[in-house]
């Protein structure tokens, strides 16, 4: 921003203070509008792709959930990082969109799932993603390299997902005996609070051929998720770089 050395009138403004105030208002407007746009876009993307894995407690298994959610989640995080880092060197791209996603999800889960259809929050809470997002942002901040962020950041994004959700999920993986059938509390919540449109077989719980690691499927799933996230990160970094614009700010 150009300034008058005297501190008097500058361009169209009467004073430096007025110019600074206008910049501040512009900053807030940009932050708010971009945040709302990211919230909407990322939320729709996530509902359509991660969908049920993120909606329901009895979908949050050891294999598919920690594989699918990080891979589909790293998309907007990478694109947002490309926008905020390439143009502004601001290290909050991933946290920015993830916060938007989670605020949108919490509004959705509380107002729609609980407020309108009365599914208890313990059935419909979203996946926690802030910790992996902070990791991604800080790796970019420290390295200054999208390449290192894609490799180290995305791997960490995948690896941190399950441990960061375990403090909430563990309680729902306690066992109960229901009429001779072993069930977790998560299974039971899904069974009790009826979803007419969701038969039990629709759940994709630990299906696949990953059978040689015994009960230790989470680390394998997390590593796999991290590796695929690297590839997705590259793709979406360039999506963010090529398809975002700072045209208006450039004019300023």
């Amino acid at each position, binding site marked *: 921003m150009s300034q008058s050395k005297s501190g008097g009138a500058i361009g169209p403004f009467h004073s430096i203070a007025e110019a600074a105030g206008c910049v501040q208002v512009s900053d807030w407007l940009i932050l708010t509008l971009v945040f709302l746009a990211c919230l909407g876009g990322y939320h729709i993307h996530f509902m359509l792709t991660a969908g049920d894995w993120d909606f329901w407690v009895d979908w949050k298994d050891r294999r598919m959930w920690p594989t699918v959610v990080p891979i589909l989640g790293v998309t907007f995080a990478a694109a947002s990082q490309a926008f905020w880092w390439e143009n502004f060197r601001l290290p909050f791209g991933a946290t920015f969109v993830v916060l938007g996603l989670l605020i949108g999800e*919490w509004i959705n889960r509380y107002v729609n799932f609980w407020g309108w259809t009365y599914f208890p929050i313990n059935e419909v809470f979203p996946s926690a993603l802030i910790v992996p997002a902070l990791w991604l942002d800080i790796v970019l901040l420290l390295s200054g390299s999208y390449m290192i962020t894609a490799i180290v950041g995305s791997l960490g994004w995948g690896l941190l997902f399950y441990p960061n959700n375990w403090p909430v999920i563990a309680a729902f993986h306690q066992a109960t005996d229901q009429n*001779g059938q072993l069930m977790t509390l998560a299974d039971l919540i899904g069974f009790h609070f009826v979803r007419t449109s969701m038969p039990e077989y629709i759940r994709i719980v630990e299906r696949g051929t990953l059978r040689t690691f015994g009960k230790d499927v989470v680390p394998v799933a997390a590593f796999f998720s991290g590796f695929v996230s690297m590839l997705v990160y590259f793709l979406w970094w360039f999506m963010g770089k090529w398809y975002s614009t700072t045209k208006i700010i450039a004019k300023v």
Partner: protein
Amino acid sequence: MKTSIFETLARLATRRVAQLMALGMAAAVVATMGAIAPAEAHGEKSQQAFLRMRTLNWYDFKWSKTSINVNEEMVLEGKVHIFSAWPQAVANPRISFLNPGEPGPVLVRTAQYFGDQFAPRSVSLVPGKDYAFHINLKGRRAGRWHVHAQINVEGGGPIVGPGQWIEIKGDMADFKDPITLLDGTTVDLETYGIGRIYAWHMPWLIAGAAWILYWFFKKGIIASYLRVAEGREEQAVNDNDRRIGAIVLAVTILVTIVAYAMTNSAFPRTIPLQAGLLKPLTPIETEGTAGVGPKQVTVDLKGGVYKVPGRELTINVEVANKTDEPIRLGEYTAAGLRFLNPDVFTTKPDFPDYLLADRGVSVDPAPIAPGETKTIVVKIQDARWDIERLSDLAYDTDSQIGGLVFFFTPSGKRYAAEIGGPVIPKFVAGDMP
């Protein structure tokens, strides 16, 4: 140019914009509220007629109560015959799931059984067999709700059974759903873990917001853009910024590790989600069920005509009575609808009126003697054909009827048999050909 952009941005922040936004939001709220209306059914009528008639034949359907209080239990029970000539257009019920059809969890399902087998997961159903089921439900949300049983078939979708209005009185705030864990502790499933969810999620949301706002206040957006555009990289990100980042990262990882360890300590024994097909079910083959019917009474459809304007189905049925008593046709049921012969059902059974045509069947009153094989002409006529959209059969790609017929003896025994086959529609009024 700079002037006009700044002026434009400044104008956006004026009171007029705020007023317009407030007006827009108010209009959106009013428009939304105007459209609020309770859902009253589950779209069962929208399913094709042949599908509803020739997949699952529901019978002996009962709701133990139609009015309950919050926390009070009721049972929805019945039998289902899996149609032998299952239509090719619908995937076979190799993986199926019993489900109550209700508008959200207004009733909580505490248990459900096929016969004696607890069935919280998917099961295989075999065409030609009959299964008894019951679902235990508990009142949760006050109101008047339409409640069905339905069976979802993988690849075929939900197939909805008869529905009944259930009145729930009381306050959902009083609802309790106690569950005993393997370690003996009891928890309320309605609220369990919610405090923990908020306690973990909300601080991280605040931390995320704090991270963004820290950089926002420290660097600004337009100022950051200018620094990058003018190539002032050192000012854009300096060592102090990296130091802050490293500290935040260290704290974040530390909190995650500590929370993970504490969680493992609090819940030392956890198991994975349980899923997969349950063991094969035992079909019922008791007297009076369609599963055992062919051994006692065999029925063969010998053609029929459906008169669309008159809502009248006339079918020729060859009946072989292998029992030791004379029998009379008392009922035809399909797609959850019951068409009764008033000569046999002298009192109206307790069943939802919209599905019960208590004078819907007329047939030659002469019984079929023991050992006799006879072709009878059965007329099934009622407005419910149209209302429940079974008359749309004429427009289906597989225009074959299906269902069950029930015969009764003077001593009160019942014999059930499956019936199905093609019928020819007649689209104009007048005498049947």
